[in-house]
């Protein structure tokens, strides 16, 4: 076991080193420039980069996206899992197809649409678009889970005289909670880290999300304060890293279930 473990770790080492390299660069950059009082650096960086407001923006947008996309997707996932109807196959394929749409190729049309709605430079526009882009994936994830809930449960409840609403509320919803959490986590991560739409739709610095803030600290400037930038990058990565520590097992299991159902 020990020999095999060492062998596997050795084989993974080059990839792990490359993965950790950006973190090493960030920490190295900070410590090379700032010796002495590190808490003064972090506090100063926090103010100079206006990181707080971006962190709030990103968290609010990502959380709203996670909730909205999951709630919109759940009924459709249930319908596709349980109902047998003409066009079901076509809907599934359309969903799979839309999953391949990326924001960049639609960015012009999207920005026209958003300006037509009067939502340019608002966080609401990002929540709307992120949620919509996330829905196909969310439907697909949730459907895999619901397929795994035995339909006999519902039939038994129906025999006992439960209404459709009761079935949805007291059987499907509680049993889907883990699936909802996993699906919402994926949506959160995607929205938290999105770049192209934020770059195109946001103008005012007070609306910037974290990726946009990090970019704005470096792009088109003569003098870049790199330790500040690296500090901001590290803080910006923390929320999702922490989620990974706690949730990676559930995320993998969720994907497995959904892939199995495809």
């Amino acid at each position, binding site marked *: 076991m020990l020999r095999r473990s060492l062998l596997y770790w050795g084989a993974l080492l080059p990839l792990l080193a490359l993965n950790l390299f950006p973190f090493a660069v960030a920490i190295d950059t900070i410590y090379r420039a700032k010796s002495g009082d590190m808490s003064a650096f972090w506090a100063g960086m926090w103010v100079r980069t206006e990181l707080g407001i971006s962190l709030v923006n990103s968290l609010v947008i990502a959380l709203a996206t996670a909730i909205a996309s999951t709630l919109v997707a759940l009924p459709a996932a249930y319908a596709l899992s*349980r109902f047998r109807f003409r066009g079901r196959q076509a809907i599934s394929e359309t969903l799979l197809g839309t999953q*391949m749409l990326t924001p960049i190729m639609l960015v012009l049309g999207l920005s026209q649409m958003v300006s037509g709605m009067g939502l340019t430079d608002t966080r609401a526009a990002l929540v709307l678009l992120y949620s919509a882009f996330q829905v196909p994936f969310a439907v697909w994830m949730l459907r895999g889970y619901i397929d795994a809930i035995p339909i006999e449960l519902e039939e038994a409840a129906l025999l006992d005289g439960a209404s459709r609403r009761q079935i949805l509320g007291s059987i499907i919803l509680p049993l889907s909670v883990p699936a909802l959490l996993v699906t919402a986590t994926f949506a959160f991560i995607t929205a938290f880290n999105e770049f*192209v739409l934020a770059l195109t739709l946001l103008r005012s610095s007070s609306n910037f999300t974290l990726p946009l803030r990090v970019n704005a600290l470096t792009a088109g400037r003569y003098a870049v304060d790199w330790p500040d930038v690296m500090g901001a990058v590290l803080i*910006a990565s923390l929320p999702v*890293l922490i989620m990974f520590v706690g949730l*990676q097992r559930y995320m993998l299991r969720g994907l*497995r279930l959904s892939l199995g159902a495809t």
Partner: protein
Amino acid sequence: MQNRLLQNRALLLLLLAPSAVATALIALVPVLLLVRMSLSEVSRFGRIGAYVGWENFARLAEDPLLPAILLRTGIWTGSVVAGTMLIALPTALILNERFLGRGLAQFLVLAPWAISVASMAVVWRHALTDEGGLLNRLAVAAGLLDRPIPWLGSVPLSFGFEILIAILVSVPFSTVILLAGLSSIPADIYDAARLDGARAVDRLKFLTLPLLRPFIWIVLIFNIAYVTNSFPIIWILTQGGPANGTDILVTYLYKLAFTFGRLDEAAALSILLLCGLAALTVLMLRTLEHPAHA
């Protein structure tokens, strides 16, 4: 009873409606707007003017930069997808085994997923341009370099690093999908194969890889779609420069639209990209429907 549970048209429509609206919001409205823009004159502020027919497409066809960019997009997609696959498959095979510290290894493999691609690109840009930075110090200390160099100085080197970073960014997702595929393979068929005297190499070649094939296809197709459209790495590292030397279709599209203000031509280019994607999607659905012939 089956009827009551499974066939209720009004309820069905009600359940599907929210997702249908959301899908229309990204897949229908913007596409129609793009079609309209691509066939009209559009001012640099986005005001849609007179109908001009295929003129925007004709101007794109005459764009002297486009052939090289198209070729570079092909090289970009091909090398990133191939590189990702070559790393993700063995990584998933290893992570599917039992060994000490597997949870930690898995976390470190997934770690790049936690950083936004934009931040990742910013850090790499600094690492590659900072002459006193970690990369140069390591390279000098290892005897690879006599003195620090600016890594983003030449087009081939810049593009090479952009490919490397894109691979690193794509590996976590691909590994996760393959890992999900691997764990769906029942363990007892391996036991049976082992009893029959199949060696590890044979088990990999005749059991694992064939059973994994649908998942490999999923990874390939999604990576092709995502990598062709991956924008932040090139945008942040080199903005497609120097002299359009690292532009791919999507960075050029963004430049056309938001740097040069040629929104109508950019819309035409978007439409062409969408057609390419549609073709890829049809291919994907065919493949997933008939995995045996894949």
